């Protein structure tokens, strides 16, 4: 009782027949082998699984693969273009916005969405904007710095 789906991930089109209950995050990780997207919880609290679906951040553990049929998905693997890091990736690196890196793909994509909505956020807005993403390593200090730095790079960009 598989369902055929057609999904564009990081610019490449995939066609698969999947179980209706398969979560998008498991489709990306286990079927496509795109393991940059992480799983950190089972209650949609942590945001480690955040990807862009049709340009907007979604928690891919709350989306069924069949719901992504026809959608365009960007995962962390697809963010750098032509070997050039995205300004958010660059800013996370330079501001030491990651330690273990497990929250990082989701954090970067959540920040991407945030900066799309609000290209010039205050520190307070960044903190609230990332409320769906948990990091246990950094205390968020350098993540916030990195997002503010990326915002500036992108505005000047």
């Amino acid at each position, binding site marked *: 009782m598989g369902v055929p789906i057609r999904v564009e991930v990081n610019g490449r089109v995939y066609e698969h027949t999947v179980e209706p209950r398969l979560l998008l995050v498991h489709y990306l990780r286990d079927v496509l082998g795109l*393991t*940059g997207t992480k799983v950190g919880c089972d209650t949609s609290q942590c945001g480690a699984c955040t990807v862009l679906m049709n340009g907007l951040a979604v928690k891919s553990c709350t989306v069924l693969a069949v719901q992504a049929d026809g959608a365009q998905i960007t995962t962390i693997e697809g963010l750098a273009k032509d070997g050039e890091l995205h300004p958010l*990736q660059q800013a996370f690196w330079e501001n030491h916005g990651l330690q273990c890196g*497990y929250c990082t793909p989701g954090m970067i994509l959540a920040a991407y969405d945030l900066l799309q909505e609000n290209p010039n956020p205050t520190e307070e807005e960044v903190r609230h904007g990332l409320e769906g993403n*948990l990091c*246990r*390593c950094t205390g968020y200090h350098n993540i916030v710095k990195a997002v503010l730095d990326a915002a500036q790079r992108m505005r000047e960009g």
Partner: protein
Amino acid sequence: MGQYIGAAIKRLEDPALITGRAKYTDDLQLPNMAYAAILRSPYAHARIKRIDTSKAAAMEGVIAVFTGEDIAQSGVPGVVPVGWLLPDLKTPPHPLLARDKVRHVGDGVAVVVAEDRYTAYDALEAIEVEYEPLPAVVNPADAVKEGQPLVHEDAPNNIAFDWSIGDKEATDEAFAKASHVVSLDLVNNRLIPNAMEPRATLADYNPVTGELTLWMTSQNPHIHRLLMSLASLGLPEHKIRVIAPAVGGGFGSKIHHYPDEAITAWCAMQVGRPVKWQATRMETYLTDAHGRDHVTHAEMALDENGRILGLRVQTYANLGAYLSTFAPAVPTYLYGTLLSGEYDIPAIYCRVIGVFTHTTPVDAYRGAGRPEATFVVERLMDLAARKLGLDPTEIRRRNFVPPDKFPFQTQVALQYDSGNYEAALQKALEIIDYKNLRQEQERLRQEGRYIGIGFSTYIEACGLAPSAVVGSLGAQAGQWESALVRIHPTGKVTVYSGSSAHGQGHVTTFAQIVADKLGVSLEDIEIIQSDTDQVQYGWGTYGSRSAAVGGSALAVALDRIVEKGRKIAAHLLEAAEEDVVFEDGKYYVKGAPDQAKTLQEVALQAYLAHNLPKGLEPALEAVAFYDPPNFTFPFGTHVAVVEVIPETGEIKILRYVAVDDVGNVINPLIVDGQVHGGIAQGIGQALFESAVYDENGNLVTGSMLDYAVPKAHFLPSFEVDRTVTPCPHNPLGVKGAGETGSIASPAAIVNAIVDALAPFGVEHIDMPVTPEKIWRAIHGNGRS
């Protein structure tokens, strides 16, 4: 030092992590791989009357279902051992899967191996288990009373150990002659580590060679290999390879040897296929060892000038249902020994009763014993200051061990090697502009606004420690560290370190040490760790030991490389060895730098071995096994400034200032990051986090919905600074930096809140300090 040590170099680890290319355990797939899922007890205490796995086993896609009985019948040792013994410690067996009884919610009772994750979880629901529920006990102070349910029949009153340190008589005498005594009853709240990556393992067994490869979320692959071999699987140690790929945080929770990884390995051996298991977040809540959970009564005796005369502490430490790997050490040698704080306290006595309860096992979590000790001491200091009418900074100053008294022998076993406590305090006071801030506090109070200033002048002992010393205290492990440095014929460098990073950035930090010592560039250095087949023995990463012990091992090995290279260079330069200097990667005769031999040239000659000094072995590599002569003792002052809204109990952190002294700093970016993360976890403990059990032993805070891991907007930005008092006994002058934040911050935050509420007569509020507790404290009797 050269250009690398001390520089804020951006991490070499990061390109893989920010592009999603780093591989964590659950990212790995092997051909023909199956998935395991573990059925867990819904009861805290119950007899298992019957397990029927037949329906599950018959499901399509299910490869096998096993119970504890199957493991026992396979003839493997099948247990999880404890790695630290105390006198008269009760060590009841901890089987991989429960057989007769379950002892905490989450205790494993069966395992399914299936073709995919979804089927494995479906099959769990088809396993029938008949339980006879039994009464449970969850609070350690209750569990020791007569008539309480027993967790283990052979541990009367649920007592695992009754341990003490210090001089009871001298302490009683100090109290008898005291002018002032302050006392405190507190609960140090139970915490759940919450590394963002849940624990996982991928096991691959080759029945032809008898070799087992385990990729796992480990902070210490060699310890896991040893315990897998000896206690769990009975496979020879040399046939087991443990690899920790990228690991998503640990904070202690990935030190311990748990049943689940061993079960997965055992399953792989049974079904003849690679098997992967990853905990769901709910499973991590039920099975990752929790932290803290003390019930404590503490008293401090002082003379009329505010000099401490004595400290007396009694603690019930919750150990949970089984003894986790290093559980006995945490509330004893990592707690009682820290009770002297930064102070010259002439008499201390501490008794700790370790108690079994029907809860998840408790073990080391970031800080491990030292946050609990710091909280006791620093809360008492504030209570004493208030009682004597002294400023909290003044009473601390009066009791600091002065800089000229080092090495300082405390009354609780430790000998502090160095320190300058006043300097760190002073710096923190300048940063917050203390005098004006106090005036501001006064002014705001007139307006009905309540801000508070809280101090925590903390000490930490880390970088464990002389192996003979920890051995004499009960450790079943050594605590040295290793490094092997290999210079290749082309002059490139590979380092094999016994440390095992899981987010700390060792690759960068260690490469900086190598680059400076050998004069090679960062691109020419590879740091290998976390693989028992590649790395000589090592004890791993925990207790803030990697720079102090692992880094020291590396420094010693690098010195050995330089010395061997000097012999070869002297031979090639036809000079006496003592005339040859090594600088910036070149050997030359003093005064003749233009006639230099580069390290690369020397390395090539070492491998060609055509023209070596007589008696010198070929090749250029060196190994060091570094056993530290003492702990390192980071210290500092943390200050929290908070505002409390009495009407709602709401708390705002206005400023958080940390002045830490971790000795020489190799990479300030990384050290600051460690401090930030530690502070966040400490603030989490102080304000938000608590693992709560109901009386039946159900974990009420069993998911991320119910347990408040701090989010970005719960926290302020931190102001971090340093003083530098190099460690006098290791080659780099470094101390641990990973736990200072979680050790210092809970006391700073609670002291600030209590200070803010001084006008209401509030003396103490237990953590986590929630708005409700504040409201009750204000409207109640002063204590909550």
